[in-house]
């Protein structure tokens, strides 16, 4: 008996998984179809760009500074005295702006934006505000999802670039003014070494915009699926954060494999 119900529950889970994938695909198409309505929903779009920036700027700045400091301490500690210093600077620079900042920032923002998006939309769902939008002849996907997904996709690269500037600046200061292990001139020549435009583009535009899309889309998706009261909202919020964080880490590997 127990074995049988275990298999049935496994089967149900499998079916639910594919149903979810299908529903996500439907929402994705609906979101795309709302893009031409961007002028109609312009107030909501502007509002989302604004609130996303304001709500994430402090935490972005904070973690950016510490990413710079952390990678500097690690970089100098891990490389031996035999490696040229500008080479160490080069490793710190590249690993920070291509890998460390995008992924750490995305994971933190998955918690911050994704979680609050799912909770926000989820609580609208359970209190019939989504239905209220419909009765006012406003499409919930156009009014809520499209602006958020757009803001996430566009703003994450902007935040990443900003964070990278801060991270490198803090690393530069730490290296040259506090630790004194390298001269400013040497640090800069390290940064220029083996400089590839595509790598920069990849780390600062492609990756963050995909991650930003995943965060905002999964927040919206799980928010809209919320069932039941406050408990359902909590579940949606956690699910959204976990799913987007896992997808980000997995995609980070595949994108690196594919494009670099």
């Amino acid at each position, binding site marked *: 008996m127990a074995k049988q119900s275990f298999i049935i529950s496994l089967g149900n889970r499998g079916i639910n998984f594919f149903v979810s994938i299908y529903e996500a695909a439907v929402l994705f198409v609906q979101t795309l179809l709302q893009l031409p309505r961007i002028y*109609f929903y312009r*107030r909501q779009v502007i509002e989302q760009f604004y609130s996303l920036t304001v709500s994430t700027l402090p935490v972005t700045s904070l973690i950016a500074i510490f990413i710079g400091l952390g990678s500097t301490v690690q970089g100098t500690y891990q490389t031996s005295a035999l490696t040229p210093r500008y080479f160490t600077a080069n490793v710190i620079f590249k690993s920070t702006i291509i890998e460390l900042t995008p992924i750490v920032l995305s994971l933190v923002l998955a918690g911050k934006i994704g979680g609050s998006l799912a909770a*926000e939309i989820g*609580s*609208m769902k359970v*209190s*019939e*505000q989504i*239905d*209220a939008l*419909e*009765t*006012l*002849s*406003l*499409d919930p996907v156009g009014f809520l999802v499209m602006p958020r997904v757009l803001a996430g996709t566009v703003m994450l690269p902007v935040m990443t670039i900003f964070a990278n500037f801060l991270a490198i600046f803090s690393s530069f200061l730490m290296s040259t003014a506090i630790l004194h292990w390298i001269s400013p001139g040497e640090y800069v020549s390290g940064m220029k070494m083996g400089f590839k435009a595509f790598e920069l583009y990849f780390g600062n535009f492609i990756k963050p915009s995909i991650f930003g899309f995943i965060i905002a889309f999964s927040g919206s998706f799980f928010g809209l699926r919320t069932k039941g009261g406050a408990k359902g909202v909590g579940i949606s919020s956690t699910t959204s954060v976990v799913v987007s964080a896992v997808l980000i880490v997995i995609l980070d590997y595949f994108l690196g494999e594919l494009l670099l």
Partner: protein
Amino acid sequence: MIEIRDLWKRFENKDVLKGINLTIEDGKTTVILGPSGQGKTVLLKNIVGLIKPERGSILVDGEDITKVSRRRLFELRKKFAFVFQGGALFDFLTVRENIALFLRMHTKMKEEEIEKRVKEALKVVGLSGTEELYPEELSGGMKKRVAIARAIVSSPKYILYDEPTTGLDRTNAKAVNNLINRLKEKYGVTSVVVTHDIECMETVADKVALLKEGKMFFVGKKEEVEEKYLDYLYKLEESYGI
């Protein structure tokens, strides 16, 4: 006129509506009474296309709202306003923004004109001066009335009320009942009121429909309900633990 014909709706394995027939006449208030969990909200949501039925039709001025395209549905919905059970005010918008939303999104009205309409609507519901407040700062009764203000600002032909007096004290409930009557007299609004509140029924109804086990088992005048179906009314209140 709204004509509901043989409407069926099921969720998972449970038939909730089992062949509803009801005609809602223009300029009148139709009250639908029914015990808790019997599909009153589901019926109301069917009328504005928030829920699709398995079978049957709902003719809104001759057009079947259950079968129109989504684009047409959005047009048809502009004839309606829906006052939700809990108000469903947008909690990220102020009272002013809640009421103004429809006009801002769907009309080319100037800000001054919108502001005027918002003020008017708030005056009708007796809540002048609350424009800057957020829903969380309002009491239950105030929320319901702001929801009604949001409903009337678009000058709808039909207003659907889901339990407009539930959870309100007597004073607030009376205010809401009077409001429903006033909107009918002043603007000729056609209202559908779903409730289990007998006093509400007595104050606003021109026509009463009694819902039981997914069907309308009586449609007629309220005097007749009070004569013939006292039992039903008692059971109704019991189902809500009153």
